């Protein structure tokens, strides 16, 4: 048989599939490319083709105490939200999957409900509740609000892992002499950990990027980065916004990569 005869016939379906993927990828990446161009271009407006390369917007971003305070606050809040939502979401998922609770379906839907409500309403409702309760708008109120939104992500990923979890692995451990506590720490926890931490990464990013919920809950001088950026944009629509976006993207990316290195998100999960 000749080599030519062996060549695969042109597959229109496959070509269309490939083209669709390329288009989707371009659609996802194009805005980032524009942000990069805008961030590096010295003019205070988007001009194409760019007139040069300059770091002036990055300098402006890093020199601004407003931006820096907001950045640190956002990171700090996101870190707290990560820890809280991992603990709460993980515990909830275990209770829902294992606890034999009455009304489990309802409870699951209930815990997922923050995702279904428009976040802006969640923010406004919490804002009013806080004011009515007379507690003002403390930073922990903001963290709680973000956690509320982030917990469903952890719940989802953990439930997914628990769903595929072979209960007999825990029984095997028990039969081998592991007490219930040791079964949990030696077997259950390590096995659901990838799901919990994948949810944790989502939680971090959901909090770090959170705008609608934060909008009403931040107080003057303690505003998170997305809120500061939004308000900055109303007055100065310059490259500092793009520089800030780049920094945000890189930070979020490095958190994901760090988590992946530290925890090994896909080390032993068949995804």
């Amino acid at each position: 048989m000749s080599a030519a005869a062996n060549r695969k016939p042109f597959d229109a379906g496959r070509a269309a599939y490939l083209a669709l993927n390329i288009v989707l990828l371009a659609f996802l990446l194009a805005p980032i490319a524009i942000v990069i161009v805008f961030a590096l271009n010295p003019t205070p407006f988007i001009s194409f083709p760019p007139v040069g390369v300059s770091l002036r917007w990055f300098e402006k971003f890093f020199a601004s105490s407003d931006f820096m305070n907001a950045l640190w606050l956002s990171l700090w809040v996101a870190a707290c939200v990560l820890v809280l939502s991992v603990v709460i979401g993980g515990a909830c998922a275990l209770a829902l999957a294992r606890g034999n609770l009455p009304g489990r379906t309802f409870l699951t839907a209930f815990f997922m409900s923050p995702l279904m409500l428009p976040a802006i309403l969640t923010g406004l409702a919490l804002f009013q509740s806080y004011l009515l309760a007379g507690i003002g708008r403390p930073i922990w109120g903001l963290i709680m609000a973000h956690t509320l939104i982030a917990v469903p992500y952890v719940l989802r990923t953990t439930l997914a892992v628990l769903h595929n979890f072979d209960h007999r692995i825990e029984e095997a451990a028990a039969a081998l002499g592991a007490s219930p506590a040791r079964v949990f720490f030696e077997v259950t926890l390590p096995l659901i950990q990838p799901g919990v931490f994948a949810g944790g990464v989502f939680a971090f990013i959901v909090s770090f990027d959170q705008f609608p919920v934060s909008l009403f809950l931040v107080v003057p001088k303690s505003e998170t980065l997305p809120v500061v950026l939004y308000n900055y944009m109303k007055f100065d629509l310059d490259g500092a916004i793009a520089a800030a976006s780049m920094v945000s993207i890189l930070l979020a990316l490095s958190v994901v990569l760090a988590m992946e290195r530290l925890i090994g998100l896909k080390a032993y999960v068949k995804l």
Partner: protein
Amino acid sequence: MISRRSMLRTGAIAAVATVGAPSILHAQTKTLKITTWGGKWGDIMKATVLPAFEKEFKCTVQADQAFPFMPKLQASPKNDPLYDVFHTNSNEQWSALTEGLVMAKITAKEVPNIADVYPYAVSDKIVGVTIFTSAIGLGYRTDKGIPVPKSWKDLADPKLAGQRGGYLIPVNSLGQCHLMMLGKVYGKGLQDLDAAYKALEQLKPIKLVDFTGQMEKMLLSGEVSEGVIHDSGVLRYEGANRQPVEFCSPTEGVMALEQVLNVTPGSKVKELAFSYIDYMLRPDVQKLLAEAVWYSPANKKVKLSEKYDARLLTTPEKVATLIQPDWKWYNARKDDIDARVTRILKG
């Protein structure tokens, strides 16, 4: 394993510490809660104006620069409002008034410096006190070979098809001002909506934005050659940021874009709130802010440097070209107007 566990533990302790920390209460000094703008204005407020006020009046000022102010004020209890002084553009003060969120009138009795302001600042078109105004006119590129505009009608020049810029009228007060101006220029007056709708139709194709800042950028980048904009949005691009963009005050007059301060009726520190408005009307404070962001001061006694004096509305003659929109009238019809203009500008 150990490092991971200890890391988690540290994080948990930190989280608990944050949650447990009591909010610090300023029991001694009074706190004045205000809204204010961001950008260059906000920088000067935070760096100079507010610290000086705090020192002089022995108080702390909590300045909220994060939009949206109105819903936050609406959501807070009336007897303990989130803000003492409410800084917005004029039209929002009218909406706030109908909901009882701000005071109807402020006079020289509460704020002595009101005695020195131009009449427009406390006219019947204003709820509260105007501290600055901008002029809404036309911005245009000087490098595109287009004729220098003189009238509002010049925006309809067929040569500008697709090159002219306007606003999404439902969400932008400059767009709303422009619509009223069209009624005046093409019809019987600011309230001649039928003439305004017809004129608006003639402006198509037109590039529309929602933020005023976007219009500034489109002019700076040359994406539009001529568009509706306030003077500050053109004049403040000086020095390295300068582009071939100029501002024109059309012969029919410019629309006023007022910066208005008002006090919330439920404020617990009303005296301090009035003092703050009075302070913002002081000639030295007015000069500082006016020259920072190219706003025309409301106080007649302010003497700006030559450069600013030449371009801003600083004399009775120049102030006379200001046309104040009747926001009470406009807001009452806003829903109908929104529906109509959306239909006109669609497609």
